[in-house]
């Protein structure tokens, strides 16, 4: 029991690791502020493209979305970061993460938006168009507001996934929170710094997870 506490909940080591881990937290937050808006915007574009009238665009987009949902994010990241240089494209860890995350998260957000748009009945579209609203105006004022409202739990849930996903950036040595915590672990031979990082993740995300559960249950009933 003592060994357990010493190895995983060593307060002394946690305190010493805290500054480093907090610095990592800053990077994590910065990363989130970059990739989440990128994903939300990209997802909307992907969704609209996947609903295009042109069959070529539609099939092409759906293929791309399924491709990026089938490839594990870590594989995509490693490919962008250490594979692309072989083709002459060398990206910084941050840019590589941004690109890989954009492709991956836009696909997931895109599917959510698409489901939302499809859940808004055809009648809404008809009514708006029949009053002379352009397709763009109809989308902006009538369809999207309802679509987003319908899939809000899924959007929030996916955003939580994106926040958790930033931890894989540690594999390409981006100094976010997990990387910093792991660094502290390798120096102290003790897992407590990582437990500290875990605690911070919990503090950030537990409330949101609770909220999502409640939203999901209210919709299911």
């Amino acid at each position, binding site marked *: 029991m003592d*060994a*357990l506490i010493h*190895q*995983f909940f060593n307060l002394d080591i946690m305190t010493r690791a805290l500054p480093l881990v907090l610095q990592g937290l800053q990077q994590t937050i910065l990363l989130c502020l970059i990739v989440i808006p990128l994903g939300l915007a990209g997802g909307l574009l992907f969704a609209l493209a996947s609903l295009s009238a042109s069959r070529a665009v539609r099939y092409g987009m759906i293929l791309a979305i*399924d*491709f990026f*949902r*089938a*490839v*594990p*994010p*870590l*594989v*995509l990241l*490693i*490919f962008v970061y*250490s*594979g*692309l240089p*072989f*083709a*002459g494209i060398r990206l910084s860890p941050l840019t590589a993460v941004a690109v890989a995350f954009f492709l991956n998260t836009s696909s997931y957000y895109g599917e959510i938006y698409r*489901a939302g748009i499809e*859940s808004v009945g055809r009648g809404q579209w008809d009514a708006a168009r029949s009053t002379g609203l352009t397709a763009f105006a109809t989308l902006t004022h009538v369809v999207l507001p309802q679509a987003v*409202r*319908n899939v809000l739990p899924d959007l929030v849930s996916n955003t*939580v*996934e994106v926040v*958790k*996903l*930033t*931890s*894989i950036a*540690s*594999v390409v040595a981006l100094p976010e929170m*997990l990387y910093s915590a*792991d660094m502290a*672990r390798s120096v102290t*031979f*003790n*897992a407590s710094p*990582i*437990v500290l*990082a*875990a605690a911070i*993740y*919990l503090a950030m*995300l*537990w409330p*949101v*997870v*609770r909220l999502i*559960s409640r939203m*999901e*249950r209210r*919709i*299911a*009933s």
Partner: protein
Amino acid sequence: MNAFLEAFFKPNLIAQYWPLILKGVLVTIEIAFAVVITGLLLGLLLAVIRSLQIKLLNALIVVFVDMFRALPPLVIVLIVYFGLPNIGISIPSFAVLWLVLSLVLAAFAEEIFWAGILSIPKGQWEAARSTGFGFLGTLAYIVLPQAVRLTVPPITNRTVAITKNTALGTVIGVPEILNQATTAQSFSGNATPLMMGALAYVILFIPVVALGRFLETRFAWRRS
């Protein structure tokens, strides 16, 4: 264009390394399979236990589920992989990967199954009980069959997402696809093995993703 093919599709490298990638594929499939089975069964079990409405058990389940839904899988993997040996428990890396991913899948699956069970109208329970079914019987014959059908699309989506995390095994040395691919890449100084690895994942998972898309349209899960 030629440079691109040279960098990512060099034929002699493809011939040289495809057995290695295939080995990685087998490892990935084995672990994914194991994770799906244990994860879903555990999730279902937890949902059933939760329906017994025993306050203490419910609290424990909720804490477990929330934790494993809020933590990044890689964080848990590193804690278990680096921490356990230091307290004398030594398990191989593939077992660590299987254990962590199963628990994560179980946590998500429990929530999905639970939402499914809750969505079955009370009338179904009453009808079953009034014809003499006990609690477990009602669950087994009336409630779960309906609930599980409802949950097929989200379960499929979530399962795919979590089994893709087998790629995280590369960080702790599990010889799955990504690991084999990056090793081969370092040896050969060429990104072809990496491309092969990526394509291996695509071939493995696109059918499942397409299946999920098909199921989504077949079973409309949420109608707002």
